[in-house]
């Protein structure tokens, strides 16, 4: 599959970034999905890849829905509950579209790479051109399809750009094993070798990290 092809393996009703993440996880792995919602990804990973996939979800109604679907999900908070897992308990620890909403993103990332061999992180890119344009032209906080709640109501208290994230990984000493950005239509961007362009046109980013 070349980087220009639309993503074809999106399961029915499965969020695009979840499908991309599922594509990056090796069969039979031990996976922890933080902020797993109703457990779509762990369900997919168990059924299609035979993974031992578990989840943590902060929204009680979502966690209950997941358990009622027979999925191993516990109510918990990324900021406080990762500390209770032993070192190296998982092959992959997934944080999809949640990093920008946690209290202490650095600490959460550090915990992810303590309890897992790899961290898989997806987040909406605040460096997208439309966000920049709106702020520049209107002088007000951007409102886009991705950033769709007013500043005083958004749970996204720590937005970042793709370049910000590269800098953080460098500061923390994490190896970026692979990364990609997808555009508004869900296509993988052709900007793999040009982070500046990805940061301009990528709506979402997906990183796979390892400790150095």
């Amino acid at each position: 599959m070349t980087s220009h092809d639309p993503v074809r393996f999106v399961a029915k009703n499965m969020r695009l970034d979840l499908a991309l993440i599922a594509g990056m996880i090796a069969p039979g792995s031990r996976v922890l999905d933080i902020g797993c919602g109703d457990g779509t990804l762990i369900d997919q990973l168990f059924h299609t890849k035979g993974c031992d996939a578990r989840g943590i979800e902060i929204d009680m109604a979502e966690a209950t829905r997941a358990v009622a679907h027979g999925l191993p999900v516990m109510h918990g908070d990324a900021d406080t509950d990762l500390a209770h897992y032993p070192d190296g308990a998982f092959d992959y620890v997934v944080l999809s579209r949640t990093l920008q909403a946690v209290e202490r993103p650095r600490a959460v990332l550090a915990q992810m790479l303590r309890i897992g061999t790899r961290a898989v992180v997806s987040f909406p890119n605040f460096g997208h051109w439309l966000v920049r344009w709106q702020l520049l032209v209107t002088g007000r906080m951007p409102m886009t399809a991705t950033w769709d709640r007013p500043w005083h109501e958004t749970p996204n208290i720590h937005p970042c750009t793709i370049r910000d994230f590269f800098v953080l990984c460098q500061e923390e000493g994490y190896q970026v094993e692979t990364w990609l950005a997808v555009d508004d239509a869900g296509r993988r961007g052709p900007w793999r070798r040009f982070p500046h362009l990805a940061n301009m046109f990528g709506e979402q980013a997906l990183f796979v990290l390892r400790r150095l």
Partner: protein
Amino acid sequence: MQTQTLARSRHRSYASRPMSPSDALTETVHTHVRFDEDLALECGAVLPRYTVAYRTYGTLNAARSNAILVCHALTGDQYAAEPHPITGKPGWWDQVVGPGRPVDTERYFVICANVLGGCMGSTGPRDARPDGSGPWGTDFPPVTIRDMVRAQKRLVDHLGIARLFAVMGGSMGGMQVLQWAALYPNAVFAALPIASAAYHSAQNIAFHEVGRQAIFADPDWQGGRYWQTGRIPARGLAVARMCAHITYLSEEALTRKFGRRLQGAPKDSSEAISLFGEMFEVESYLRHQGSTFVQRFDANSYLTITRAMDYFDLAADYEGDLANAFRGTRTRFLLVSFTSDWLFPTPGSRAIARSLNRAGANVSFVEIPSDKGHDAFLLDEPDFHRTLAGFLHGCAMHAGLPT
């Protein structure tokens, strides 16, 4: 200690035979199995033989892989999913266990046993001492949750079941579930401690002590040898039940059910209510709970079992770290708590979930919104029932049970 083969050949099973309700507690015969072998208790005492009374629902499959052990709470018994032989009331978990229920007896084989120390047919303070010198009474050894579980394990072995598909229960039943998972990890595929805790809190011990003191204060208790006069400490036991019952509810539930409504005093009542001429509905309700309880429960059993709960502190058996009880376990856990349960509040379940995380166990954990207090686990709570059914279904898939 006798060999298993010898002991097994001496097992006798009897069918349940309901008796007239007047002396039902002493004369009802419960389905049971007697083990003519030692049971070494945690306290150091040894029961030279013991009886486990139990009921089963559904059919054990050919592979013997679909068995679920249901553990009852303090004042529950083995009649989980059928009318009670003494009270005639529906089984205490009728809404959870049965055909088409979350624990579907069309699919699973459900076992429920009366705990050691109980009064529904399993060995307890009402039984004769081994030397035949009358009932044990208060001399019955102080059994623990672990002793109860070991007696249940013997029953499960007797039924020819090497691995239980699930062990589940609420409150004290949840304590037994945790003890099962810690003691026999390979015999428990899934464990469901509901509205429970890994140790009994100081507040809960305190409430139990009020109940016990109420029993001791009843002149009819007679030092625990009340069988000698035939007068049971009904008032003391009823007050203990009333006190405990408050802890099973919540302020919202009491307000919703009774509020501050008054009702006229029953004319034929000889009780002190005539002092005021009228009573609050909540008082009437509690008195009813107290008076019906004494018909089906033995005071010395109440003392024994409340003590067993008080002693429970699973981590204490594992160097003070609950995670040590579960290291390396392959059992899948589901913990459930209820928002308005102040007797076994959510932090207790969350602490267990975190210990299980530290042990690397597979754990699901949710808190169900309910205003029904601790009793919610016994009542109609659709979210709870969906959670149970879904969790068991998922486990059945992982266990390779036919769907």
